[in-house]
């Protein structure tokens, strides 16, 4: 199983990374490995972008019609069939295409994971890196002659911020930036504050179980917990992986902005003022 995953996902990605590295080295671009990481991440994101864009668009429409769906559910509480019919009609009216579903989206997870494992290997500072990479590359032209330089703007990509912090205190900016970017993306994805119509619906369903409330509250907290978690990972994992993750998130933010605008981010006080002006 692991073998299969390696051959199907990890090795092709490693080859792409090495190819980019060789190209950048050939062009005498400094910190070639760092730029290869950025390049490969952007490439993967571009490949996935049609999928993500469809999903984001559907997500936007879903958010727009969610008050209506709650209303339908309230109206026909005991008639599952009716709920389904009405919901489908609503989808049709608003041009939501529920046919895509979530499974195609889940297919991108192995790719994201594979990229992670490739980079984890690539930035590790071990003496065998040349031999290990050369074993996997498809063509001789890609073979490494010497170990790659893992420095990127003076930061050794193979080391973790938690190690570097004693010699380079400013390195804490890396986990900090990672957490902030992650927060921005998560916040953008969550719907902007409920409008009046949703509030009304909420009042009607007040008899909901308390358990739901807890889960709901926790979900809201996830918005803050998740970025902190990612920030912590970024603190304890090699800096090269933060470079990957930040490129990945930044691309996500841009794509999200293209589809939704600021989304939930417009709830933030300083952005709200600007919106009202």
């Amino acid at each position, binding site marked *: 199983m692991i073998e299969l995953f390696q051959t199907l996902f990890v090795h092709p990605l490693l080859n792409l990374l090495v190819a980019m590295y060789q190209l950048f080295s050939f062009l005498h671009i400094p910190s070639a490995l760092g730029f290869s990481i950025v390049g490969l991440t952007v490439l993967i994101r571009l490949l996935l972008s049609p999928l993500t864009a469809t999903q984001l668009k559907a997500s936007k429409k879903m958010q727009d019609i969610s008050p209506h769906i709650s209303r339908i559910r309230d109206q026909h509480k005991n008639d599952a069939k009716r709920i389904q019919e009405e919901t489908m009609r609503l989808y049709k009216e608003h041009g939501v295409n529920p046919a895509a579903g*979530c499974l195609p989206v889940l297919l991108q997870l192995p790719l994201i994971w594979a990229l992670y494992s490739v980079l984890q290997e690539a930035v590790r500072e071990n003496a065998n890196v040349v031999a290990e990479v050369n074993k996997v590359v498809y063509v001789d032209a890609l073979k490494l002659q010497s170990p790659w330089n893992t420095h990127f703007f003076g930061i050794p990509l193979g080391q973790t911020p938690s190690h570097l912090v004693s010699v380079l205190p400013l390195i804490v900016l890396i986990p900090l930036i990672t957490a902030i970017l992650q927060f921005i*993306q998560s916040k953008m994805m969550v719907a902007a504050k409920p409008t009046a119509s949703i509030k009304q619906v909420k009042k009607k369903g007040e008899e909901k179980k308390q358990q739901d409330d807890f889960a709901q509250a926790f979900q809201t907290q996830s918005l803050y917990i998740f970025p902190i978690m990612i920030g912590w990972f970024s603190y304890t994992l090699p800096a090269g992986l933060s470079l990957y993750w930040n490129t990945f998130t930044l691309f996500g933010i841009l794509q999200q902005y293209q589809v939704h605008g600021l989304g939930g981010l417009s709830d933030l006080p300083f952005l709200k003022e600007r919106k009202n002006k």
Partner: protein
Amino acid sequence: MKHIAIHAITIYQLFLAFPLKTITGTQSVCRFSPTCSAYAKEAIQIHGAWKGLCLGMQRLFSCQPFSKNPRMQNA
């Protein structure tokens, strides 16, 4: 077994669902109601761990373009 399965799903809902949705960009796009995880929980309550999990998986796998029978009802 039943309790383990239900707790596992709760843990997923609390800790994993949000990161997963953020990373893949599927926040609030679910076509089913209740969500698959809630549905699986309910199914496990009613039918026991094994059959409940099967029902849950069946529903998760019907969330793709080729599915003909979107199940919107409760377990």
